């Protein structure tokens, strides 16, 4: 047994506790509009480390499992009809574009939009929702209707007010969650999502599968228990061998 082995178990326990944090966040957001669940998969790293050892260097020191990264599950959430014309939902991979407080672009799947007192279409924090050209949309009325092409119409007005478009990331891994249901990404990474459709009168529910999260939670709790058991066993073994070495006659 190597002396460092207790740290291997410790890093395993730490990784599990991080995963618990992430599961907890998914569950807290199980009813957040447009929320996308996070996955935190460090097991891949562990098995990869084991594979490396088996294939190349069987005598290499133990590799500690570390959290490699969070991966967001961008799968579609269920669309729920809301009876409210200003509720929009994206069906497909795209995101709505909004103008963030710092003037930059931010992306969201939360289409719970509002009308500002000046008639501008805003998100629930008052940030302007942008059309396909990147300008704010001013329907001037909350009685909006959308067609399949994303064109917005209001009563008593000829022709569309604007066209709202959804944007998708070429590499979703480069999107950063910001809180407030917002995502950030380099503009070069984002392009109009041709196959996404925007629906009025609907909201997208979170794609958190609570059953899956509960099972993950049970599983990681047991693993955590195993890790702490391992730490105790290692500790006991060391203390025992220490005692034996101190008094060899016994």
């Amino acid at each position, binding site marked *: 047994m190597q002396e460092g082995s207790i740290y291997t178990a410790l890093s395993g326990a730490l990784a599990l506790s991080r995963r*618990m944090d992430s599961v*907890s966040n998914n569950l807290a957001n199980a*009813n*957040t509009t447009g929320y996308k669940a996070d996955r935190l998969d460090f097991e891949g790293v562990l098995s990869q480390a084991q594979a490396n050892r088996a294939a190349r260097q069987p005598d290499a020191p133990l590799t500690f499992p570390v959290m490699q990264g969070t*991966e*967001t599950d961008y799968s579609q959430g269920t669309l729920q009809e809301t009876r409210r014309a200003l509720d929009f939902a994206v069906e497909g991979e795209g995101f709505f574009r909004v103008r963030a407080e710092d003037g930059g672009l931010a992306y969201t799947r939360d289409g719970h939009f509002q009308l500002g*007192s000046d008639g501008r279409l805003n998100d*629930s924090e008052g940030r302007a929702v942008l059309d396909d050209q990147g300008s704010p949309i001013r329907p001037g009325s*909350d009685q909006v209707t959308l067609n399949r092409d994303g064109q917005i119409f209001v009563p008593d007005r000829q022709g569309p007010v604007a066209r709202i478009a959804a944007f998708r990331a070429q590499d979703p891994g480069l999107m950063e969650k910001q809180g407030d249901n917002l995502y950030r990404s380099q503009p070069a990474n984002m392009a109009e999502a041709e196959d996404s459709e925007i629906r009025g009168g609907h909201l997208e529910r979170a794609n958190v599968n609570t059953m899956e999260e509960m099972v993950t939670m049970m599983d990681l*709790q047991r693993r955590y228990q195993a890790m702490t058991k391992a730490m105790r066993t290692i500790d006991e073994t060391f203390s025992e061998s220490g005692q034996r070495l101190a008094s060899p006659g016994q």
Partner: protein
Amino acid sequence: MDRAMWTAASGMKAQQTRVDVISNNLSNVNTTGFKESRADFQDQMYQTQRLPGATSSAAGTQVPTGSQIGLGVSTASVSPLFEQGNLESTGNNLDVAIEGRGFFQIQTPGGETAYTRAGTLEIDDQGRLVTPDGNPLLSGITIPPDATSVNISQDGTVDVQQPGTTGTTTVGQIQLATFTNPAGLEARGSNLFMETGASGPAQQGLPGANGAGTLQQGYLENSNVSVVNEMTSMIAAQRAYEVNSKAISTADEMLQMANNLKR
């Protein structure tokens, strides 16, 4: 795990807010002109341990995904839904419902203007049209004491019939107010709404113009609460509350294991 516990606690709090809103909706299911509210949530900030796309080596390789852990949920808004409620015939001459987006304008005792969809009107001792609380309509219509009948037409014109005269006399016209963003109105209780910076200024208009809607005498507008929707949301909220409490107890048990490490 500390983080996990607080994160799950924020989830429980959010569901509590949701249930609060639902129970207010349900308790007002028979309130004239009541508009249901809905709580909407958003995720809280993220602790970023590594940014997506960060450089991971001197050779310029990039990490394919970042490492971010969220810190829970917060309430984004609780806003009313101004969808038309069903009109119910009451047979009462002074019950008036608005079919459209307008609001009656009421003068409060404090001299402010309040807005309501509840058209349960009555006549006070001075002959004014008032709400059940005694607040007069802004239009300043006075019904003569000897009037035998009151007729309110779709465009808001109030005509009365008086003994000894043939035909009717017009005593005034009820005006309605509309808002660019009605969801931005502040609910004041007693079926009243107040203008805010978010709703935009009230635009006065006559019934039938600018989408303000027409008046229907002898009808009242029911609340627009859908009991089935509220019950479904309540079940969903309860289940979400449960799983979040499970997350707290799991994190707690894990902490206990960590505590038991040291003999």
